């Protein structure tokens, strides 16, 4: 990891955190988890339903953000894998007689395989071209799924009693999804903190440098794309529990765009940002759609404010000042990117 040790000034690289500073996030995390687990007994059913979606979208957004915020690869195509995950469960049930859990286990595998293939092509393009080629993949899959009515159910999607009956109630469904989300997020957290995660961030800041130091950045990004695809697919399979089925729109670029929105609203330079984004976006969206006739106007307005006023997303506001400075070198320079 010579690359990064060089990049981070020694003074701020890894200051031994005070024990309290290390404990606090853990405690906060545990408290949040306890609160989330107790939620079904504290909040209204409609909030549990939103939470059910948040569980799936948090995994989706964090997995997408592995590319967007960490590697600097803005993908508008993660919906492909989200949709693939959902359809693996429903079509596996319909065509191959797979049980829900068999389909669920298969989803990340298929997601990874598809991502590896798509990544081979898409990663040849850079920056905005990458964003748009992934968008094209999203739309291509959407069209194909919508048109092959015989196999995929077309625009009507596949809505069938594929989810085990005991998970149909909001409380059980939510608690199951919460468990899966926590496990998936822990795995992703480990990835973020690993050398692989650090290298990804380094490649975002200075691709040429990482390349010069002997890492094949294309391969690094392909690996990230594959891993992200697997987790996005897992998130799609989780979404079936909420949605009780799969539909073609899950492949659409607007689904992919949701992951980007959540990452940016929450803060794409942190691990927790997309989770916060998933919360705020989903609750905001659900409330607005139900109760405000001009919900798009309000959603757009708030999004605009966040983008203008909070470049680092809402998670930046929730982060303690010390931490911000600690990781300053590694996580903030995107602001300076404009400079020559």
């Amino acid at each position: 990891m010579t690359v990064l040790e060089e990049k981070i000034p020694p003074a701020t690289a890894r200051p031994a955190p005070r024990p309290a500073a290390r404990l606090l996030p853990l405690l906060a995390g545990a408290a949040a988890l306890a609160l989330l687990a107790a939620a079904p007994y504290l909040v209204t059913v409609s909030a549990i339903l939103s939470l059910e979606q948040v569980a799936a979208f948090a995994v989706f957004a964090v997995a997408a953000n592995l590319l967007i915020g960490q590697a600097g690869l803005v993908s508008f195509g993660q919906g492909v894998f989200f949709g693939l995950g959902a359809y693996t469960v429903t079509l596996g049930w319909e065509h191959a007689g797979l049980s829900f859990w068999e389909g669920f286990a298969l989803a990340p595998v298929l997601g990874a395989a598809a991502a590896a293939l798509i990544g081979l092509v898409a990663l040849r393009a850079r920056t905005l071209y990458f964003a748009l080629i992934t968008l094209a993949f999203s739309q291509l899959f959407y069209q194909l799924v919508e048109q092959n009515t015989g196999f995929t159910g077309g625009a009507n999607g596949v809505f069938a009693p594929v989810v085990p009956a005991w998970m149909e109630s909001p409380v059980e469904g939510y608690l199951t999804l919460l468990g899966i989300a926590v496990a998936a997020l822990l795995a992703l957290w480990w990835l973020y903190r690993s050398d692989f995660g650090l290298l990804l961030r380094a490649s975002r800041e200075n691709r040429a440098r990482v390349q010069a130091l002997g890492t094949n950045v294309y391969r690094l990004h392909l690996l990230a794309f594959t891993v992200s695809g697997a987790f996005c697919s897992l998130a799609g399979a989780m979404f079936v529990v909420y949605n009780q089925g799969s539909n073609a729109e899950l492949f659409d670029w607007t689904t992919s765009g949701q992951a980007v929105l959540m990452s940016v609203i929450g803060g794409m330079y942190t691990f927790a940002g997309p989770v916060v984004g998933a919360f705020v976006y989903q609750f905001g969206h659900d409330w607005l759609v139900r109760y405000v006739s001009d919900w798009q106007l309000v959603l757009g307005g708030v999004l605009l404010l966040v983008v203008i006023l909070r470049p680092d997303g809402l998670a930046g506001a929730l982060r303690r000042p010390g931490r911000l400075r600690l990781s300053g070198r590694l996580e903030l320079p995107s602001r300076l990117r404009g400079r020559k």
Partner: protein
Amino acid sequence: MARFNAQRWTGLAAALLMCGSAAACANAAAGTGGSGGAGGGSGSGGTVTIGESTTLSGAIASLGQTGLQGVQLAAADINAKGGLLGKQIKVVSADDAATPATGVSNVRTMLDADHAVAIFGPVASSVASAEEQITNAQQIPIFLHTSNDIGLTTTTYSKYVFQDVPNTVMEPRAAADYLATQLHGKSVTIATFAPNYSFGQDTVAGFIQALKAENVHYTLVKQEFPPLGATDISSYLAAIESAQPDYVFNAQFGGDLVAFTKQAESYGLFAKTKVIAMYDYSVLQSLGSAAPTGAIGFDRAPYWTDDNSTMSAFVDEFRAKYGDAPSEWAILGYAAVQQWAWGVEHAKSFSGDAVSAALSGASPATILGSPQIRACDHQTELPEYVGTVSAQAASSSDPTHLWDTPAFEAQFDQIDYSCAQMTALQK
């Protein structure tokens, strides 16, 4: 440090604004929308809640908006007559943006938070089939008054589902029947044109099948499937035009059909070819004087072909309230609420099981007469109307070209599958 704090505050302010605005609007909506809902929406007080989750934004918003108007007006009329089982009906509505996941979220909230006792249908079939999963599981009746995919009453059918529109089998069949009466055994060339997704494909397939059943002598010269909502369809039209068919069967609806008509007109397609399509009230109204005279239209509930006094009273009432004649979507939405209300009164209960049992096989009176609700699939036995677009505007003040009267009324038992066929499809 000071700078950081400033950022922190703006961030929190944005977050609070997001939640705050949502909550504030929610309160506002609850306050104004709940017309006399002082007892809360739970059905235990003076009100009972029904939900309409439909498409209120985007390309097909006009269908959802007028459908919602029909539902709201029906509830208001029932309330004006003292309500239902002594309770006032409260309508909660939400935009599904034509997305199944949003529809699911809306319906689950309507059921779990608002305690809605019945759900009224969305525009898109995909949203409808997603919502059926929820209402079936929670044993709440759902009345589909816009989306009409045959799959909704076959593969995903349960006794809580009510289909209040002619389905995708009936509609093209009615058009084919009308065509057969016009042709008197003459042989013709036909092209088809449909949006490239299940609704379009099914409708076209149904039409071809119906032509066979009617022993029409036809040659299929061209089939085009442009993407749904395509902006420019000129190359598809050019392909149709060059095939020079006698008839084009078009399975588009709403704005897409309007665009098709405009572009087909510029190719002079209507001079040599008759178009058969869903030239319903909304489309004809959008087209105004650009309506394709002589084209064959079908409509699920054209108000102008029904001269009974109940319908004309309804049309007057609707005009007075919304300043416009009711579209088929409004009429069917209104009738669907009437059906449900009839079921509640006869069951003397709001429970899904009781209402379903009361309605199954019954013939409730609605503004569309008293069609039976078929017991095997809960399809309302509605006719489908077919007519020829008139050369005359409706009146000097209204440039809309309606149909020549009398319109062709394809009877239900002529155009739908039999119960035996439906039951087979239901597995």
